[in-house]
């Protein structure tokens, strides 16, 4: 039950950012849906993986591919889908707790949450980079594929 509430909250949080960023029409809906689905990936990855970093990695990877695919489908920049969908993944909680503990002089919690936010940021970055590489490979592959068939049938 908590997961379903979280998914709905992720959707509405992303929708709020879509409003602030002045998105209009269908891209508002699709970009916020991307945020919800990427959080869904994070939650389902928990079945297979225990580590938090790898779950964030898969969520970011999914979101990157989602954004690239929708950018091609809707003929809009990928940033539109990526920026809004990325919001639920941003480690706001651990970032805030890190600073709070630093001010309250709780060193152990500060170190714990500091490392956690760094870990999540690294995982998100690597998710994005792998999605970029995968998508480029896929694009190249499809291009070569069609090229091959065109040559073959034109002869």
């Amino acid at each position, binding site marked *: 039950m*908590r997961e379903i*509430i*979280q998914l709905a*909250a*992720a*959707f*509405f*949080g992303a*929708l*709020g*950012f*879509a*409003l*602030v*960023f*002045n*998105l*209009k029409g269908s*891209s508002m809906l699709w970009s916020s849906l991307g945020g919800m689905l990427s959080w869904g990936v994070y939650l389902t990855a928990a079945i297979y993986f225990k580590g938090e970093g790898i779950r964030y990695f898969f969520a970011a990877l999914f979101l990157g591919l989602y954004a690239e695919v929708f950018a091609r489908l809707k*003929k*809009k*920049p990928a*940033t*539109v889908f*990526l*920026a*809004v969908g*990325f*919001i*639920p993944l*941003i480690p*706001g*909680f651990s*970032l*805030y707790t*890190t*600073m*709070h503990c630093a*001010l*309250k002089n709780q060193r152990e919690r500060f170190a714990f949450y500091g490392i956690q936010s760094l870990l999540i940021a690294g995982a*998100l*970055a690597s998710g*994005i*980079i792998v999605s*970029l590489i995968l998508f480029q490979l896929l694009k190249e592959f499809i291009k070569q594929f069609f090229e091959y068939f065109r040559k073959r049938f034109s002869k």
Partner: protein
Amino acid sequence: MDDEYCVKLSDDTGKLLLSYALDIGAEMLVNGAEISRVEDSISRICKAYGAKEINVFSIPYVILVTIYCENEGYITQSRRIESFKYDLYKLEYLNSLSRNICRIKPDIKSIKDDIKSINKLNGASFVRTFIGYGMISAAFTIFFGGSTAEAVSACIIGFMMHAYETVLKKLKMNKFLSSCVCAGAAGILAVLFVKFNIGESAENISIGNIMVLIPGLMITNSFRDLFSGNIISGFVRFTESVLLSIAVALGMSIGKLIL
């Protein structure tokens, strides 16, 4: 094919073309495009009108372009970007505009009207951002495990933050300071709300409000810039977003420790 469009670059039009291409690029950068998109659009537009040897360099604060035209030789122009105002609708519009320019290749003077029409597009209206702030705050309070009462108070604080931020924007305060102050006010309000028994924990309320101020778009753009080869821009944006989020978290905690 090239010769046909070189005719368009006769007389003084090379300079005009370059300045319009730069206007479009600068406008893209302001509205939150990544560097590779800006550089790509500018060089595509210039190439479409038959300019030779196009050198584009851009970082988040400046765009620098040199092209070679047959009549005018080398032309260099630059644009300094002072401040960012993320507006993804404008970005979509600019993207399709630059695609259209490359495809249809309209008369250079008519591009000017297109650029004027971009500036006429309204930014995010007051109502949209107002609702957006409340929605983000409430949604993320629930997302991080807060109760309904806490979500309601986060929503109200979100509305207040919006009003506060519009005032701060008019003062033209430093970006880091203004988000720090804004977060501090939100922290104080969260503690006050808990004192009046709307919600149990101020932490849960603040976490919703903090998400409003954290620069999510800048973080995603910095990752994309870093890994598409624009290392300088990626680091500039990454550092800026880290500093901004530290400022926000700091302001929030200071606000809470005061009370």
